[in-house]
């Protein structure tokens, strides 16, 4: 893959201000997301990293009082343009959540869900298998596709959720602390999976685990909390290639955080 293509910015996220009712949750955060790379969002709790991630596929629109000022350029279009349907955005930008949340239906139906929703006309069985292989779950479940998705272990459930999200082949996959409910072995499996996924998808991941960011992310965005305006407002401190951010942080705050002075 040539470097020029890798540097392609698929999503240009400029979160100037994000409000929940009167509360300013995030300010002045420009996060360019590069195609076929993994972008990690790190920072202390309450720094707005999840808020920014969830703004990218307009999940936050479901929260009463949510207001977004800025723009998120996806290809040639701003996804916060009034003409854009948030439902359509979510079909193009998939999401994996903190808690594994398969539907109370069979493993097969979980993966086929998005395909049926998007009126997929092709070979359903084939596409479900492809997604389950993509989610590194096929070998474990191929003999029990009719069993409930809830019968799987936590790590398997999370991989099922990844398979469900990638079945419709969205261009971007958002992951909101996908390993925080999992044990170390399951975490490792998901991390390995992410490295495979980036060949086909663009991945953004929120993590509270700095080692995880170092292991998987190509680019890392460090957010912090600004207490000066009176609230707890999150903002982007700095963003760089992961190696560079961890070895040579430009900001004093980043240095202190990576050093473990606060969390």
């Amino acid at each position, binding site marked *: 893959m040539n470097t020029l293509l890798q540097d392609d910015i698929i999503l240009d996220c400029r979160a100037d201000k994000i409000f929940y009712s009167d509360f300013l949750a995030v300010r002045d955060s420009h996060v360019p997301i590069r195609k076929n790379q993994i972008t990690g969002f790190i920072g202390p709790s309450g720094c707005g990293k999840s808020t920014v991630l969830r703004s990218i596929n307009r999940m936050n629109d479901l929260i009463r009082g949510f207001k977004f000022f800025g723009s998120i350029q996806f290809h040639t279009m701003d996804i916060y343009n009034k003409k854009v349907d948030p439902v359509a955005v979510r079909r193009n930008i998939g999401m994996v959540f903190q808690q594994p949340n398969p539907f*109370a239906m069979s493993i097969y139906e979980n993966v086929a869900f998005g395909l049926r929703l*998007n009126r997929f006309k092709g070979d359903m069985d084939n596409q479900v298998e492809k997604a389950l292989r993509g989610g590194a779950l096929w070998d474990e479940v191929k003999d029990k596709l009719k069993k409930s998705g809830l019968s799987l272990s936590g790590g398997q459930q999370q991989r099922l959720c990844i398979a469900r999200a990638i079945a419709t082949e969205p261009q971007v996959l958002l992951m909101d602390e996908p390993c925080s409910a999992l044990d170390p072995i399951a975490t490792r499996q998901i991390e390995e999976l992410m490295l495979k996924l980036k060949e086909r998808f663009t991945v953004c991941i929120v993590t509270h685990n700095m080692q995880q960011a170092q292991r998987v992310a190509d680019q890392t965005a460090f957010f912090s909390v600004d207490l000066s305006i009176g609230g707890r407002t999150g903002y982007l401190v700095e963003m760089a290639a992961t190696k560079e951010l961890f070895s040579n942080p430009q900001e004093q705050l980043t240095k202190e955080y990576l050093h473990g002075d606060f969390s």
Partner: protein
Amino acid sequence: MAAENREESILPHAETLAAPPTTVDKIFDKCFRTLTLVFTWATVLLLAFIVFRIGGQALPAIKEYGLGLLVSSDWDVNNNQFGIWPQIWGTLYSSLLALVLGGFFGITIAIFLTQDFLPHKLEIILKNIVELLAAIPSVVYGLWGIYVLIPILQPTADKLHSSFGWFPLFSTSFSGFGMFSAALVLSIMILPTIAAISQDALRAVPGKTKEAAFGMGTTRWEAILRVILPTASGGISGALVLGLGRALGETMALAMLVGNSATVSLSLFSPASTLAALLALNFPEADLNQTGVLMYAACTLLLITLVVNMLGTLIISTTTTKGGER
């Protein structure tokens, strides 16, 4: 007592504020447990006693008429000919009709009141109003049916019969008292049960499941129809079965509205009868032989409702363990 002393002596007499439960505490605990056990078994025994006594009184009739009583339509007191097939039919038909109507509206109301269509305060107010329907006495429903509902239904029913008389459901003329009025009132009576339990089932759907649905790019209706309703389906089927159980046993309003005619007809407008209405209306002037027959009918009704209720409990318990977290 000896065992207790030993137990205490094992604990080190260190300086601590923790103290073992006193003997009074233990006696109280034991009494409380015994008492709850007694009441629990008393309930079970009471049920067994009721079944036993009614069964006992029905026994002569069961011996004399056998299963033939269940499928016969004759009711001739003078010749000692009895059959309760029309009543069984009427009970099942009116209850199923009520279940279809009450189930549809009950579930619709439950969706409307739980899926953020309204501000939270308004949801609570409407929820309570729907539940108030359960507080209206059966006889008041009956009166309302006779003096309000039947006059309202008359013109529509007449039109349906004259235009669609060839259709089995509308094949007889509407006399007011009959299956249609009875089933409508019945559906209103079971609506609160269905709506309330369905609401609980829908509220129990985890937030993360809804989030997953919206994250996949569902519209609000797609999320409700494809994810939330299927997830809550266990609880909702339980609600339907409990509603059906209520409908099967309902007596007063039906006795007032159903027409009390031993007729077996698919037509909604035909008068009919139900087991509960038969019992209520015939006991006052029943002789010994007829009492046995009525007890037989009571057993039949009891059996039907017991089976339905047990089925409901079974559905609820199996689906809640299946859908729940592990």
